[in-house]
């Protein structure tokens, strides 16, 4: 698998400060980000890892459900839904695609 395997059509770097961390629930829809840290309890972290969310991996928020419902996240070949409360344990930094 190549490092850019997560590139998706319509992807761009966010305008955020590259060193700043954002909680996944607040991360802009459609932007690609890299997971930096997961601060959840042990078994939730394990579940997230099993579903593909681990530090270093890239993901993208696809959409948000109405009335502050869950968010849909694409990580690798897997689409996930997670509640915003659960997503808030995931720290993300903007992904900047390597210069070509």
């Amino acid at each position, binding site marked *: *698998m*190549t490092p*850019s*395997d997560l*590139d*998706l*059509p319509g992807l761009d770097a966010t305008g955020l400060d590259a060193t700043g961390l954002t909680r996944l629930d607040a991360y802009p829809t459609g932007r690609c980000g890299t997971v930096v840290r997961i601060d*959840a309890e*042990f*078994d*939730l972290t*394990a*579940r*997230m*890892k*099993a*579903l*593909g969310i*681990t530090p270093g991996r890239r993901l993208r928020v696809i*959409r*948000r*459900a*109405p*009335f*502050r*419902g*869950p968010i*849909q996240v694409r*990580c*690798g*070949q*897997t*689409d*996930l*839904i*997670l*509640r915003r*409360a*659960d997503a808030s344990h995931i720290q993300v930094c903007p992904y900047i695609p390597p210069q070509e």
Partner: protein
Amino acid sequence: MSKKRLALVGMPNTGKSTLFNRLTGAGAHVGNWPGITVELLSARLLLGDSMVELVDLPGLHNLHGFSEDEKVARHFIETQPVNGLLVVLNANQLDRQLGLVLQLKDIGLPLFLALNMADEAAARGIKVDAARLSEELDMPVHMISAKHGQGIAQLRTELTAWLRQHPAPIAVRSAALEHDDQLEIRLEDLVHNTVHVPRELPETLTDRIDRHLLHPWLGIPLFFLLVLTVFQLVYGIGKPMQDGLAWGLGALKSAWLAPALASLPAWASSFLLDGLYDGIGTVLTFLPIIVVFFLAMAVVEDSGYLTRAAFLVDSLMARMGLDGRAFVLQLMGFGCNVPAMLGTRVMRSRPQRILTMITIPFSLCSARLQVFLFFTSAVFTPAAAPWALFSLYVLSFLIAFLTAFIWRGPAQHAREPMVMEMPPYRLPTLAFLVRQSWRDATHFLRQAGGFIVLGVALVWFLTHFPLDAVPAGPDTLAGIAAHWVEPLFSPLGIESLLSVALLFGFVAKEVVIGSLAVIYGAGPTELSGVLAQRLDWVQAYSFMLFTLIYTPCLSALATLRREGGVGPMLLSMAWSLALAWTASFAFYQIASRW
């Protein structure tokens, strides 16, 4: 010939059940295992010269799993000796799913890897180097499509050879799990070396559909539209079939059965014709509609749309102490409440699980649907009947929500995380649908063959004994029983004979229509006429309200007891009876004075 045992392991939704059915055919049975609290599906499978018992384990995300399902799977692996594990992975998602294999490798059981959904992977241009993967993992690896049958014959051959190398069942080596970080590095290497994913993934059909179905404003209205369409479809197809069957059974009775039995004593022919034949016949006319209904449910369930429904409504459900999954189970309960209750096993928090289980019995199941179809089409005009039925579905949800809201107690604070996969849209195969409808039809007939016959016979006895009394009159046993419960039911506008049917409905709602046929001495075709004569719409609706709300059936209660304990079962019983009475009372008292 030696007996061997193999367990199917994998994450949820990887196609374990599909593979299980593909390998074993129809002969599966549910069994109890020592030390394991839930029943597991297993079946015998002939591989070469050995008989292998294949056990389908619940989905497992990782070995630290926290849901009931995961605990069961892990406990099985830890305690039951097996010759090996047949691990099923989704070939599209090896980037994360291979982690489970690395964990499993550490416990020392022989592993055989089946990479499923080869068809989807090919369509997406994902390539897996199975030979290299097999080498790196030191275990057989095989690409298959359980749904379409690709690679299954070869899988059998290789499984046979592999089992020869592992002739004796072994128990796990309980080594401490390798540190996760190390495992992740290995996972990354492994994926890098063996999986190739195209750089640009094209927008899939699923993405395009979801743009509409998960639209922030249109999503929920579209959901309701979809539910309505499914129901329209079910009635459009099922109702004419039901009417035809009722007509056929009636014709058979008058043209052939009645003359043939004319020589029997009056009570005997009454028992056979007005008791068994009418009672069972009336229930049987629902077979087509039930099968069509379950087929539609199977398509919806298999399509992956239910996860999307959970996504859409989760935040609304959260206000009632429930979550999106509870809503989905509520929908599944439209078929039958019992499997929906078992579905709560994916939840980890016990208060939340119990709360969900208490709300599921209010879901309008197919057995209650029979009663409502009958009553609405008998008492309401053809234009009003669908709306009466629809209102009952809406009420079913409202009552479930009210119940959750009132009893949410500890579940409210035990909010458990909801993190789950959203699979792409899939269509079931025709073979799957045929098998499904066969299973549902036989299940329905077995029920009809069991306590429906018994119930109908008992109702006949109660309404015809003593033999010299007017059938179903005040002097019969049923009449006496009805007289006793009259003070309870007359304020609800439920006439005494109808209350006898409710008594039997406690066992199973399928019995209600059958026993009404017996009570009123009417066959499938005549019963609606009799009901229309005896009941106005207010009384009929009050009866339906009571039927909707009170305890669904003994099986549901038994399930609640087994899964939740005696306390929740008693609570559910008392609450639903009290609520049913209050709701019918309020409705009847208000509506009849209007």
